[in-house]
């Protein structure tokens, strides 16, 4: 078997492109480039690669989307995953990022788009994953802010933790996600919320947190993330509280954000 020149299937590039095309499509032309073994035919042997390709990516999606699996069950999840795989070859060195576009895929692709709760679950779970390995920044403490001179608050701006994500969800996705392991896969029900809520997802240390935000808190956090100074954060809550109550409400909300570990820094 050594040093014996065989019929050449073309250049290295031709062979690599043809092999990849074989794994990504249904054609069988590439089979001519490989040999049968004495124990198995080439279609069987190439099948190890073709099957393995899909199974590895399905496994990655299963790891990243346990709530979606709990909603869909293994058969429907497999169907969805294979449809996504057919449309989205991986372009990243790490399989960790493979599922990035799943929520958009569900939202934009019939029949999956018929379940907006599934798209929301995927969006929520991906945000959790992004928070999981976002850059590490220690949150500030409330004491630091208490020590500031009153005039500093006129220009005081904040930066949020790099892990902070905000999602507006029409379904009770986070509540259902917490029940994901308590039900048989396929039986996780996700109710529509009485009204859409904004949820914050962030990771103050090693564990990710999430909670819903009141409407004025969500508006204030939007302004904070945009880098607006504290007086403008007060303006953001004014429509909800009236002008007189706004500073106290904004200060209270800010304190909750700081004590919850959402805020990375400030400047004035």
């Amino acid at each position, binding site marked *: *078997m*050594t*040093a*014996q*020149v*065989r*019929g*050449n*299937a*073309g*250049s*290295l*590039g031709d*062979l*690599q*492109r043809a*092999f*990849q095309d074989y*794994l*990504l499509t249904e054609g069988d032309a590439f089979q*001519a*480039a*490989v*040999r049968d*073994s*004495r*124990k*198995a035919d*080439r279609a*069987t*042997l*190439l099948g*190890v*690669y073709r099957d*393995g*390709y899909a199974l*590895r*990516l399905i496994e*990655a999606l299963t790891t990243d989307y346990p709530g979606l699996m709990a909603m869909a069950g293994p058969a429907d999840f497999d169907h969805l995953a294979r449809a996504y795989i057919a449309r989205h*070859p*991986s*372009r*990243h*060195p*790490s*399989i*960790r990022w*493979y599922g990035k576009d799943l929520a958009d895929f569900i939202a934009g692709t019939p029949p999956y788009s018929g379940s907006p709760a599934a798209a929301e679950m995927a969006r929520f779970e991906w945000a959790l994953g992004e928070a*999981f*390995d*976002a*850059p*590490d*920044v220690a949150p500030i403490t409330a004491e630091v802010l208490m020590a500031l001179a009153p005039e500093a608050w006129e220009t005081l701006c904040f930066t949020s933790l*790099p892990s902070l994500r905000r999602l507006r969800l029409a379904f009770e996705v986070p509540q259902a996600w917490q029940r994901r392991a308590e039900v048989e896969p396929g039986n996780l029900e996700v109710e529509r919320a009485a009204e859409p809520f904004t949820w914050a997802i962030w*990771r103050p240390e*090693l564990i990710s947190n999430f909670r819903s935000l009141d409407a004025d808190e969500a508006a204030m956090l939007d302004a904070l993330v945009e880098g607006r100074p504290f007086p403008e954060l007060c303006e953001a809550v004014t429509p909800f509280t009236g002008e007189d109550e706004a500073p106290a409400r904004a200060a209270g909300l800010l304190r909750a954000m700081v004590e919850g570990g959402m805020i990375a820094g400030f400047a004035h």
Partner: protein
Amino acid sequence: MSTAETGFGLGLRPEHYEEIAASPGRVDWFEALSENYMVPGGGPLHWLDRIRRDYPMALHGVSLSIGSIDPLDRRYLDELKALADRVQPMWVSDHLCFTGVRGINMHDLLPLPYTEEALGHVAERVRAVQDHLGRRLVLENVSSYVTYAASELTEWEFIAELARRADCDILLDVNNVHVSAFNHEFDARTFLRAMPRERVRQFHLAGHTHKGSHIIDTHDHPIVADVWTLYEEAVRLFPGVPTMIERDADIPPYADLVAELDIARRLAGSTRRAAAE
């Protein structure tokens, strides 16, 4: 006495982070999967740094795609270099394979044809990667399920010549030699004996799945007897080379893997003593 340079390691897996940190000294070193730690922050990097304080480490990648005809991914190499600067590993390894073309990553270790063209192509890229990383690269023989009609060389001829031309080292995966030897009906010992002794930097051991007509490298079972026997031969041929067990699925308790590593220690010890007599 074992040291990391001669000793016995395990793959660093999230399931075992806390136990490893709580029980230092039960293995000599850990091999971390590079891509799992090429992230901005969070738990994995926290545990990597924490465990690195107690243990030497090697970095082992799966996406270098050293054999691909795509251009080298400079961003990936920059991230790998940054990780190596952080970890200060004993060495950096990846696989002798390609993982895709046209910018696609198949997340598989696809075999190369063993041709002069491939040899020249890979040797040039290994040298470029080594220049970029500022260190010698260690390349692993993969398990394969097909042989190409185009191949002109054996796998062992290809690897030995690549190591010579590119001045790289070899991660000899004993299980992969066994798997490919069964799948392609060659003599595993011939493969081992063809490896240049001074280039073999590390051994891998792992379990696999036997399908009757072929074996698949699944890393989800304990190491089988035939692979232990081949490992003894590898230890005879390449004494003092560090050994590590890979387990990537159906991951058992940490203590089970430590016990399996003890089998490797025992076999390597008795092989070494027999050779000395």
